[in-house]
């Protein structure tokens, strides 16, 4: 029966060949030497830690080393501003940031997805170090994790790109898989979030590769895309030739350098270092809102005023948002100025947003206490809404009808109020 098990498996799974493929016998002894040599050539040395051995490579970058627009030493100057990214407000020392990026054998958070490379980077006065831990087979994973666990307590913050949902939970899974004591959660800057906040609307993708090219001046030539990493690692496992992984190591190293550049970039933005005149209205808006959310009131203010100074026809949507910003901060004069400009811009156009009219009507009624103006803008809103409805398909859309009903009520109330006031 068991003699036939292979055959049956082959047949049932249609694996193509019922005859088992001969597995090349791996002759450990003979491989050991040239293998070690190949690793050494790539800059790796075998390091022994509390959980066993794995290969480690430290790459050192001088303070003056440039990666795109920035040189690595610029990190030292932005530490105190990066602190503002942290909702707990804990102080950030540049030397206590651990940049981290992993390469894994698959996708997702399942127990079978193994990080075969954990890359980390940190800054000291002497420069920036990228350290990569690589395992030759899954049996070395525990050794790698133990070394990482030793390193972690020296740092206060992790810096990653999508690490909050991917790399860090995955690493923690691995500690569970090996029943190792889980490292305490460091504070965590995941730069995917500010990148999305700033560039979601102006860039087709917020992938790290797209961001570094567009914003950090990093151009990679001959890069091995991260998506190929698993296949290359499996090839390495089958053939034991580490040179196939050279590109993956380089890719990971560059990703970590880009994280560093991104930290510098965000740090400089938070110091008000952006050249506002070079930014588009959409970029200005995202930047101002980002400042506002992080509590940089002054910076938000100056970016908004730059935005408000741009011609309305180039920034219709952004001016609407800017007006909402001023409304939040009860800056009625600025808000009304923007809405009026939008309303003016809209006159004579069809299918414009009703928002400026309604906002103006509300602002004049409740804040500026000018009932005539309020009534005027309510009527404008009504006119515009009716036009819109007449243009929409028979039956119209329900939301518009609701809006129309609200405007009618508003108008009626304003007329009553107005009459009463005149009677008084």
């Amino acid at each position, binding site marked *: 029966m068991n003699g036939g098990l*292979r055959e049956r498996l082959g047949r*049932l799974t249609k694996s193509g060949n019922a005859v088992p493929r001969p597995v090349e016998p791996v002759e450990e002894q003979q491989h050991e030497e040239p293998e070690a040599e190949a690793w050494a050539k790539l800059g790796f040395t075998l390091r022994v830690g509390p959980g066993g051995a794995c290969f480690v490579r430290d790459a050192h970058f001088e303070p003056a080393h440039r990666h795109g627009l920035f040189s690595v030493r610029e990190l030292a100057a932005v530490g105190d501003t990066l602190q503002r990214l942290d909702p707990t407000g804990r102080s950030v020392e540049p030397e206590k940031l651990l940049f981290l990026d992993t390469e894994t*054998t698959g996708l997702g958070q399942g127990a*079978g997805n193994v990080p075969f490379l954990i890359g980390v980077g940190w800054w000291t006065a002497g420069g920036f170090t990228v350290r990569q831990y690589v395992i030759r087979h*899954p049996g070395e994973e525990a050794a790698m994790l133990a070394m990482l666990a030793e390193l972690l307590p020296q740092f206060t913050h992790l810096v990653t790109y999508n690490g909050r949902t991917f790399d860090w939970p995955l690493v*923690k899974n691995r500690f569970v898989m090996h029943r190792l004591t889980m490292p305490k959660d460091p504070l965590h800057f995941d730069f995917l979030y500010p990148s999305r906040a700033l560039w979601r609307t102006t860039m087709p993708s917020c992938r790290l590769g797209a961001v570094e090219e567009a914003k950090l001046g990093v151009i990679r030539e001959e890069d091995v895309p991260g998506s190929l990493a698993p296949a290359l690692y*499996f090839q390495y496992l089958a053939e034991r030739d580490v040179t196939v992984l050279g590109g993956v190591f380089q890719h990971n190293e560059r990703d970590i350098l880009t994280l560093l550049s991104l930290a510098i970039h965000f740090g400089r933005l938070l110091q008000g270092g952006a050249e506002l005149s070079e930014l588009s209205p959409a970029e200005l808006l995202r930047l101002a809102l980002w400042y506002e959310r992080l509590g940089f009131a002054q910076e938000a203010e100056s970016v908004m005023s730059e935005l408000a100074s741009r011609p309305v026809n180039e920034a219709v949507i952004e001016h609407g948002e800017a007006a909402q910003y001023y409304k939040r901060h009860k800056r009625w004069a600025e808000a009304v100025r923007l809405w009026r400009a939008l309303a003016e811009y809209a006159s004579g156009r069809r299918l414009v947003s009703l928002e400026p009219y309604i906002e103006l009507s509300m602002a004049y009624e409740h804040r500026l206490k000018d009932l005539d103006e309020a009534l005027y803008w309510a009527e404008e809103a009504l006119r515009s809404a009716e036009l819109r409805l007449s243009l929409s398909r028979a039956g119209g859309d329900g939301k518009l009808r609701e809006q129309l009903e609200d405007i009618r009520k508003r108008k009626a109330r304003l007329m009553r109020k107005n009459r009463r006031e005149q009677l008084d």
Partner: protein
Amino acid sequence: MNRLTGKVSSMEELLQLIKSTPEIMENVTEWRTLPPREAKYSDFPANLRPELRAALEEKGITRLYTHQAAAFEAIASGRHVVTVTPTASGKTMTYNLPVIQQLLEDDSSRALYLFPTKALAQDQVAELQETVNRMGVDLKTHTYDGDTPPTVRAAIRNAGHIVVTNPDMLHSAILPHHTKWVKLFENLKFIVIDELHSYRGVFGSHVANVIRRLKRICRFYGSNPQFICASATIANPKEHAEKLIGEQVALIDNNGAPSGEKHFIFYNPPVVNQQLGIRKSSVLETRRLAGLLLKQGIQTIVFARSRVRVEILLTYLQDLIKNELGPKSIRGYRGGYLPKQRREIERGLRSGEIRGVVSTNALELGIDIGQLQACVLNGFPGTIARTWQQAGRAGRRNETAITFLVASSNPLDQYVIQNPEYFFARTPEQARIHPDNLLILLDHVKCAAYELPFQAGESFGEERLEDLLEFLVEERVLHQNNGRYYWMEQSFPANNISLRSAAQENIIIIDMSNGHKVIGEVDRFSAQTLVHEEAIYIHEGVQYQVEKLDYEEKKAYVREVDVDYYTDANLAVELKVLHADKERECGGTGYSAHYGEVTVNARATIFKKIKLRTHENIGSGPIHLPEEELHTSSYWIQFPDELGGMKTANDLQFALLGLSNVLIHIAPLYLMCDPLDIRVVPQVKAVQSKLPTIFFYDRYPGGVGLSEKLYDLHEELLQEARRVISGCGCLSGCPACVGPIEEVGLMGKSLALELLNRMVGAYERRA
């Protein structure tokens, strides 16, 4: 009788009404009255927590049924348990009591509940939560399934005391992400598996492997949970539970729950053509009986064997009582309806708003629809266990219930209806699983390796794990290092493995009558015969015609139509023997039985249009679909080349066909399986042996043990077939034995009988 409405005012009056209706009584072949059962009680266990006791007393429960108390004791003594009791006997208490008791004693404990469907899981949580609330303690019970919002998932993983889920979710979401469930797995005390009987066949074989994986993960986290299982009545609950969970269990079957009087009525539609042995359609007779009950205001459930039958009956019944009740008060229920629709129907049945439901076996599980008053079975449900379970849907406590079994003309039905003792005296069937089906096992070895590397010396199932692991290393799915086997593939194996169906991809059905709307789905194998182009697909009583079947994209586009026919497709099957594992020859007579592996190629060829109500054939058309290939296990009967009495090849063909028809209909009696799980192919000249042969094969890749069981029963099957044919009252073949003469010819019956006589004779002489 209520003079104003003309409706009966009690079940007793209804029984009288039926007894005084000669048109019904002349077709009743058996009327069994099962006496009411008194409740048997035990006192609360002495160590029952006071909060728990108080909560029960508040609900009016002052003692337990005997089986509930026995289960509590057995669990307290640390044993794995399986409880077997009929529908509506308070079986949920057999597991809820010990689980809540444990949680009250140790708040860090955890329990995992498994139900075969999401609907059952949700029912259960509602009931549990109610009990827990009455106690005023902080025990968190949650369902974890595809509907659970992502925002609450983390909370459930860390803090849920009782996690209620289904095997599919366990397989594809929980086990592969076990590192997120450390709290649960470290503290898991109980695993509750309800509806144990539903885990049989292919599905059960998968689930047994999921449980192997679950136990492996528990061992990893250092827990050793106790299993508490509950099952409807089957012949082998203990054996089945042990095979499913791979542990010794204690059997609790001293049912103490009371029940009302039950009337079980066998109804055989009258013969309309004596010569051809054709009886009046069971569908029409079901319509008549169910119509009578519904018109009398009796809440009734009708079970039909196929989806198509359900829809046809639904159409008929809605039409029949449209003057008494609105169309919304009679509903259909089957797989392929969307979940929201099903929940609405279940609610309507519980509230009494829905007066009648026509269902496939989808409602035989413990989905809470309350208890109905009457049940009509359109055709024998295939097994004794199923029949009891479906009939159990009727019967409110202390109230008389009535069940009609309406026989169709197929041989199995006729056999049962003419041999009432077979049904009433025989124990129900066994539930059978085959967890070591090589394909199923291999799938789960992959999943298990993904979850946790295998170590040399570990075992998983009955086959040699090492061989499987080595095979996966060769396939470059696993990586072997230092005696450990690691998952080394980019994919997520559980995604490609479905527990429910051989064909993993379902085909969705899109109604284009008014925009695009998904109305249901079918598995790929069924798609060949159900949604080929031009097929009439019936959904909730509405007819749709399939306009386009996009086999690649797995979509069937349909449009509503109103026609007076339905469609029925033919499947052409080719078969080749790959390997014979076992064979038994009947000492030199040339008759032999075999068991082994075969390749089956199946292709839908033509479809027939069949007129509603008269069921005449009014047209046909070709079906162009790619062939489906299946490697599976098979049992085959081989006949000697020289068969005296068979003058022509035609005679032989009719004899083999007639015999196959009988055998395939009695086979499910011995295998607790869906009749569609086992197939038969008679061949006058088998491809390889060139000998007359009848093949039976499992309709699942790799086989699930059905053919093997038939091989073991070979002689008994032949005896039984002979009894059926010679005992049938028809002249020369009818649908109840060898098949209608249109199919097996005028001499079909005598030819088949002669073939059987020779063979059985040969066996007897040898014995």
